[in-house]
């Protein structure tokens, strides 16, 4: 370390790995979060020869956790070939979990607490927790404290069939009672996003993801698991015409959102390796891209008439301005496709003077995102979206794109990531890659 003691250090994405994302009830049916997270770590360890390595911190998490997922990340680490002295932490910020785990380990490295980290996340819709009813839980707790046979008998006698109705995790916002899709349907309608636009975005996602597979883009980003070698949602042959035939599922009037332009319930896990340049060099690893910065924001979707998934609209201009950048400086935009409507509403908002200046108080609009720079290797509509795993998917893919583009063009390449999350939150992230000398090409 040559920098002064307290100067922030630069942190680089060194590599990533994910398992292909599965459909609910698909290849990973009956597979636990821990099994999937362990598999994602195992692939990362093998690819970068990290066996017996003592990583500074592994940060992971899941949005849907069973009781058995206690200390999920640390338990996953213990199942791998990493040095068992590697610390780990579970975090959760809905769909932004993956970006926040990266933010967390990056910050630790920046501050000199650690030199390396793994950020990731996992989620299973197939193996989601199912809880017992409040009444049954209370009775069972009372039963466990009962001292006499009579007390026990009377408690058992009080059990009613209705106590046994299982509770699956709710897909609705606790404060509004609306599902995420219903929330987005409101935003989609408010921004005047058409069905055709949404289906076009969905078709492009499938087309881009299929092309990425075809060119071998995922050969060094993915490790197949349980016989699955490709994202199960991917439909390489889907078209706008085929998508136009689907029934709408969210929104009451002028409904435009379908299963084709909304992400499906998914299973999967991802992991991203980050570290200082020195740590990487000592292990023969080449940095893909620098982790430059993050910003988080939140909307008042409960009382404030703001879109549930619109927090990144505010976070992104702040991220760019604070780093002295404009939208024209960005070569790749990764906007998580929770719904096609989310991406399109976000793009429109960034172009809207009324929204950006009058409502959010910025000096100017952010501007127009060129479509040819948007989600160029596909995104969640085609890949699927296991909530906490999505951040890691995007970071590793974007870092790889930036490295390739920087080396191909000989110029600095910058990319941004925008991820919206439940409860009105959003996180954005900036990555940057410098070209490596010709001899390394």
């Amino acid at each position, binding site marked *: 370390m040559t920098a002064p003691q307290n100067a922030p250090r630069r942190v680089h994405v060194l590599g990533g790995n994910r398992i292909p994302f599965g459909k609910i009830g698909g290849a990973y049916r009956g597979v636990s979060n821990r099994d999937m997270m362990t598999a994602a770590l*195992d692939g990362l360890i*093998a*690819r970068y020869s990290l066996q017996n390595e003592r990583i500074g911190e592994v940060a992971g998490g899941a949005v849907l956790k069973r009781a058995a997922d206690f200390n999920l990340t640390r338990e996953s680490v213990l199942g791998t070939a990493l040095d068992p002295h590697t610390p780990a932490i579970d975090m959760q910020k809905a769909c932004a979990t993956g970006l926040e785990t990266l933010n967390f380990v990056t910050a630790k490295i920046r501050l000199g607490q650690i030199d390396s980290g793994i950020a990731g996340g996992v989620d299973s819709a197939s193996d989601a927790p199912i809880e017992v009813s409040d009444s049954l839980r209370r009775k069972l707790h009372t039963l466990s404290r009962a001292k006499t046979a009579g007390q026990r008998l009377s408690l058992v006698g009080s059990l009613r069939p209705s106590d046994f109705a299982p509770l699956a995790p709710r897909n609705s916002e606790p404060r509004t009672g609306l599902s995420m899709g219903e929330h987005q349907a409101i935003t989609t309608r408010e921004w005047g996003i058409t069905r055709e636009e949404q289906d076009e975005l969905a078709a492009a996602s499938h087309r881009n993801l299929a092309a990425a597979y075809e060119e071998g883009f995922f*050969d060094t980003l*993915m490790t197949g698991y349980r016989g*699955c070698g490709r994202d199960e949602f991917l439909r390489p042959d889907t078209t706008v015409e085929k998508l136009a035939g689907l029934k709408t599922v969210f929104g009451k009037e002028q409904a435009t959102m379908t299963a084709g332009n909304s992400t499906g319930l998914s299973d999967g896990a991802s992991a991203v390796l980050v570290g200082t340049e020195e740590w990487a060099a000592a292990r023969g690893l080449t940095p893909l891209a620098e982790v430059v910065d993050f910003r988080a924001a939140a909307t008042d979707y409960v009382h404030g008439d703001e879109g549930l998934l619109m927090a990144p609209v505010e976070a992104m201009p702040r991220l760019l301005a604070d780093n002295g950048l404009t939208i024209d400086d960005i070569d790749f935009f990764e906007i998580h496709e929770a719904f096609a409507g989310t991406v399109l509403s976000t793009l429109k908002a960034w172009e809207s003077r009324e929204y950006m200046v009058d409502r959010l108080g910025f000096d100017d609009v952010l501007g127009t995102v060129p479509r040819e720079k948007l989600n160029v290797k596909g995104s969640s509509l085609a890949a699927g979206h296991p909530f906490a795993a999505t951040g890691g998917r995007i970071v590793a893919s974007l870092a790889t794109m930036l490295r390739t583009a920087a080396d191909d063009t000989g110029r600095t390449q910058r990319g941004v990531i925008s991820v919206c999350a439940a409860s009105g939150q959003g996180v954005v992230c900036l990555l940057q890659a410098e070209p490596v000398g010709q001899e390394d090409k």
Partner: protein
Amino acid sequence: MAAPNLYGSFVKSPVGGLLAKQLGLPRPAHLPRRADRDELVLSPAVVLGDSTGADDIAARLLDWGADVRRRADDTGSVGSLLLVLDDLRRPEDIAGLIQQARAAVKKLQPGGRIITVSRTPDGADPVVDSARGAVEGLLRSLGHEVRRGATANGIQVAPEFPLSAVSVEHALRFFLSARSAFVDGQLLRIDADTGTAPADWNQPLAGRTIVVTGAARGIGEAIARTLAADGADLILVDMMNAGTELSRLATELGGRPVLADVTQERTTAALIAAADGSPIDGVVHNAGITRDKLFANMTQDRWEAVIAVNLRSQLAITRALRDEDALGADYRHVGIASTSGIAGNRGQTNYAASKAGVMAYVDALAGDLAESGGTANAVAPGFIETEMTATMPVVTREVARLLNSLHQGGLPQDVAEAVAFLLSPAAGGIRGETLRVCGQNLVGR
């Protein structure tokens, strides 16, 4: 996934064993492998023959710590029998050894070894060639006759090279050791005195960068484990859908995983990247598929898929690696063939074609590579207990197991041992051969 071994279990039971003995039914013996048997040579070792070559081999076995005898009648049992017939001039010359050899065969220990060492017929003198050719019939018949896990194999050395050639030593070590447990009735030709002895015969692949395709499971996994134990630096290749199995194996063995489809052009670049500047010293083309159908029902797709993976990929990868100058000087190409490719198999026209193609290819490629000290060879497994054979119909599987001199299926490790043998720097004189690992399957040579 071990498939049930109905006959094998039956004859191991008291009643079954008695019945089998009374009726003269085959009784499969336990075959000691590398982990079961430490010593290189089973002693006493009887070396028969009065040539200087025989003296050299006897001296070499003494160096290896064996109890070496030059006669068979002064020992209670025989662990290894070497018939050194390198100076045969006439067919009747073999007769001189018969008395002693017969005595030795009678006393052969369970798991014992018979090895003939002779010269390759070269067309120079028909009388000499007739004698040299006769050795093959002798050893193949001995393979059928010996019992209790013993085997008989032959080493045939080109007439212009001395028996001190490093590949001869290498072959002797292989056939004498437990590594050749399921190799029986085979005649291995040594065509040159090229090759180099490893610094440590227990780590023969130390410092060698070896690629294994289809490495995630079955025979490929066994090859990877065996090569790792022999000291190789491994690059393990398999399809994306086997990624986690491959990654876990790579981590365990300290190798590098490459997730790639061997039929795709970009695979070569991935291999070169994984080698990270080291020359690739060997490629084991193990990736293979079956798409069985009677020929009358064979579809274009089934035919093409099998040819593409089993044969075409070997050609394409080899050419691309040579074009990129990525191979080491004493490169070792090992193709996986099959006894189906030798004898044919009902329902496997596509598979047998691909495997026969592999054997012809390594023969031709060996000629190309010879100048730089490289070799190309194939290993042809017979019936091996794998996930693939576990899916065979029960009766077919039971019969297939018995149709060889050892009356059992081989293990993936047996194929791996043969592969490791051919990959060694010491195997430089073995060129264009197909080594069968089949327990002397009744079909083909």
